[in-house]
């Protein structure tokens, strides 16, 4: 495939005077798993709806595999699988029939549909429900079938709009497992989310938006590198006392200290690996028996919050 699979250029969308997407330009590179991050109302879903022909653009362009989705939606969506918001299913159809319906729309042969249906339902762990009508399925089950239909035709691009939104913890865990599986395969994935740990866990690239404008884009590693503030989580043998916390708070570089358990505490640290290693030594010099000392996975959150704050 030539070129980048998703190219958004100066995309704008207005709703009765309100600008939901504002001159947004973004490129998603081949084979990447891009997390599209932003707070509620940032324009993530609007952008995805334009990409999937659910909304028209007020200006700019959006291309999928080099085809303008606004001008030629049928051709542009041919190699795309999408889960937008939490779709509802036709309650009178089973997952097998739903996948057959969508497969036939995409021109898949019966053999192809049968083969791929087995694979994708297995991937989302819905095989035993394949012949039950979807009407009575839970939200989590529907979301898994939704992801299955997005993979059915072996698309080159998968677009996911907050795939764990509205799910219970188990449902979220199951969907994250599926996302990790997708990551191993030959897809370019564009996923919106406001769950930073989710993005940091599964995505290779990140784009941050707020108020419809792109704030930052790059690989997760690059952005984490730029995030100079880290949240550090420490577990010790000793129980956290007020006195001990007071001593820790006096260590140079410790910010926003708080106990997070009987023998756990968290703090923010400005600096890179060198400063992080130094801090461990300082904590140990206080007599702390450190059991674990790790970044809490919220480094991206620090960057995100600072960028969001700056964009206001």
């Amino acid at each position, binding site marked *: 495939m030539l070129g980048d699979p998703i190219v958004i250029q100066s995309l704008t969308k207005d709703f009765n005077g309100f600008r939901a997407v504002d001159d947004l330009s973004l490129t998603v590179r081949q084979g990447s798993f891009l997390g599209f991050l932003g707070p509620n109302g940032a324009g993530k879903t609007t952008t995805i709806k334009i990409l999937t022909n659910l909304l028209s653009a007020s200006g700019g362009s959006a291309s999928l595999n080099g085809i303008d989705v606004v001008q030629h939606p049928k051709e542009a969506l041919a190699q795309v699988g999408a889960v937008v918001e939490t779709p509802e*299913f036709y309650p009178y159809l089973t997952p097998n029939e739903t996948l057959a319906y969508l497969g036939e*729309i995409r021109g898949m042969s019966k053999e192809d549909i049968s083969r791929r249906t087995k694979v994708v339902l297995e991937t989302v762990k819905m095989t035993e429900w394949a012949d039950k009508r979807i009407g009575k399925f839970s939200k989590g089950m529907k979301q898994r079938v939704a992801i299955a239909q997005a993979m059915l035709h072996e698309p080159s691009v998968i677009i996911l709009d907050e795939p764990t939104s509205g799910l219970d913890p188990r449902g979220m865990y199951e969907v994250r497992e599926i996302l990790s599986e997708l990551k191993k395969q030959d897809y370019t994935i564009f996923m919106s989310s406001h769950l930073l740990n989710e993005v940091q866990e599964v995505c290779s690239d990140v784009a941050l938006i707020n108020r419809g404008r792109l704030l930052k884009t790059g690989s997760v590693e690059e952005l984490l590198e730029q995030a100079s503030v880290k949240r550090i989580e420490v577990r010790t043998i000793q129980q956290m006392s007020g006195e001990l916390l007071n001593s820790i708070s006096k260590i140079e570089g410790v910010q926003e200290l708080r106990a997070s358990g009987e023998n756990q505490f968290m703090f923010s640290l400005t600096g890179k690996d060198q400063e992080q290693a130094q801090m461990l030594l300082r904590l140990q010099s206080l007599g702390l028996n450190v059991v674990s000392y790790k970044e809490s996975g919220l480094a991206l959150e620090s960057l995100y919050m600072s960028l969001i704050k700056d964009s206001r």
Partner: protein
Amino acid sequence: MSETNVNAASRAARELPSDLQQVGVVAKYDIMKYLRSRRLLGMLIIEAIVLIAITALLATSNNPKTADGVVGQYAGFATILIVIGATLFGGDAIVSEYQGRTGYLLFPNPIKKVSIIVGKFISSVAAMVLILAIYYAIALVAGLVMGNGFSTLGLASLGLAILYGISALAVAFLISSFMKGTAGSLILTFALFFFVLDIISSIMGSLGGIKPWFLVNFAGTSLSYVTTDPYPVDTIQSLDIGAGQSMTFYYFYPDVGLSIAVMAVYAVVALVLAYLIFRRREMSA
């Protein structure tokens, strides 16, 4: 060959179906909806009740009967079935994709909205034709049994009933294309055909002396009059109500040829408008 290469080869080999082929796919799965839904079952129950009631009345009546007369009795109630059918099969055809959020599943696929609406319309028409075919089949058999002959005018009535059904469905699709809720769309469709258009045609015809030939419900009544031989003609009657005053009554009957044209125009125009609205409608909620 690696899995990646298999995927790429499989994708390359697959071509999208034509718009027409996709119409067939949408129609096929939409027909499945009717076959599995309570709506078709409910419609068949209503039809059975109407058929039993009319047959019982005719069977117990001692008046001399002709085949056309018998079928005409049934045809008189066909318009009600058509209104109910248009409501159930077309009243929420489009709006349900938005309110029910199934549009989030269907619309991001490589399919044009014209294929979706035409596919849905074909399935609605198929359900309507099924209902009318069963109804008229029983009416024609009743004509054979009670009227001792086959009613060729009954066949003409069936043809007009199908055309009226199609035009009513097209109007239902139009309503469904701009309404925000399914309940409102169903109610508006039913109310429009059941009494709103009737009130308008009554006011125009009986009181204003204007023949409402351009109203689809008036044109639709031709399916009933076509079974009468000779076909009724427009009449104007003046009735002396005393004190030197009189009241004029107008009895208008639809011209069959003109009614066919009117119903066809309603079907085409309403469906095209429904498509244009559907095409522009966004999945914004």
